[in-house]
């Protein structure tokens, strides 16, 4: 059981490191995607596009390393909730914009209910890791 929890934490961390990779390499393309989501005021688009990939990277590394893992799991779960709300809102209003989840190519990842399901699974994993880290802290 202990090993399963550790594996879950590392898998979650690797997922976020992977997700940050293209965004770190192409900040301009990622900013365009953030703008296209049409959820943020203009002035917040670039700050979010610049900081978010590093937040994913640092949280991913923290989860893999098992340092600051409680805070990282909480941030990651919060991010997933925000991503799902943003995605779900745009799928609902029929806005056809690139997901920008694991890639910054405009055509690579059309958004669909399947994207939401995948994000739901990652959110669930984040919550599992979070609860485990919380319990470790408390004991």
């Amino acid at each position, binding site marked *: 059981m202990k090993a399963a929890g550790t594996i879950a934490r590392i898998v979650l961390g690797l997922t976020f490191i992977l997700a940050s990779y293209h965004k*770190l390499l192409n*900040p*301009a393309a990622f*900013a365009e995607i953030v*703008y296209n989501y*049409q959820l943020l005021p*203009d*002035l917040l*688009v*670039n*700050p979010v*596009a*610049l*900081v978010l*990939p*590093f*937040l994913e*990277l*640092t*949280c991913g590394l*923290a989860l893999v390393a098992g340092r*600051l*893992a*409680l*805070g*990282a799991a*909480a*941030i990651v779960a919060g991010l997933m909730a925000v991503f799902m709300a943003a995605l779900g809102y745009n799928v609902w209003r*029929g*806005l*056809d914009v690139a997901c920008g989840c694991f890639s910054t190519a405009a055509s690579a990842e059309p958004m669909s209910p399947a994207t939401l399901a995948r994000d739901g699974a990652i959110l669930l994993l984040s919550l599992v890791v979070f609860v485990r880290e*919380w319990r470790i*802290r*408390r004991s």
Partner: protein
Amino acid sequence: MTMSRHPALALCGQALCLLALAALLAAAVNAWRPEGLPWRKDWTAAKMAAFAALGTVDVPQAYDLWHRGEALFVDARSPEGFASGHIPGAVSVPFDPTQLENEERLKALPMDRTLVIYCDGPGCALSHELAEMLQFLGYKHVLALPQGIAGWREAGYPMESEQ
């Protein structure tokens, strides 16, 4: 950080640490990158300038402007065409280039807003003619939507009709 701290306190401290670290890294890497992004960018103004250089918008760009309420849509077709279905919120300005009394009606359009002019579709010239006429009258922010109402309808964007 000791293990005896309440988990909620530890959580806040760790999360703030990670957030600060991410912000610092982002600032450092962005400053170091030759093609770093500006922290402040007026995206809408930049988009508008790009559209203005071309003088036209495609259907997704037009939807973007419509959705954000950044442009007034002008329907250049006949009143019947307008009544049968138009872009929601569009004003009807049936345009006949041979009739010069049109000019007064055109001047009623606001000067300070971006205008997106459309007609039926790629085959109709009215949108371009009206856009040119408006530019001649001194309108600065005039864009044509060459794919017209046909392209808009095909993309599945909202329509409004008088019937």
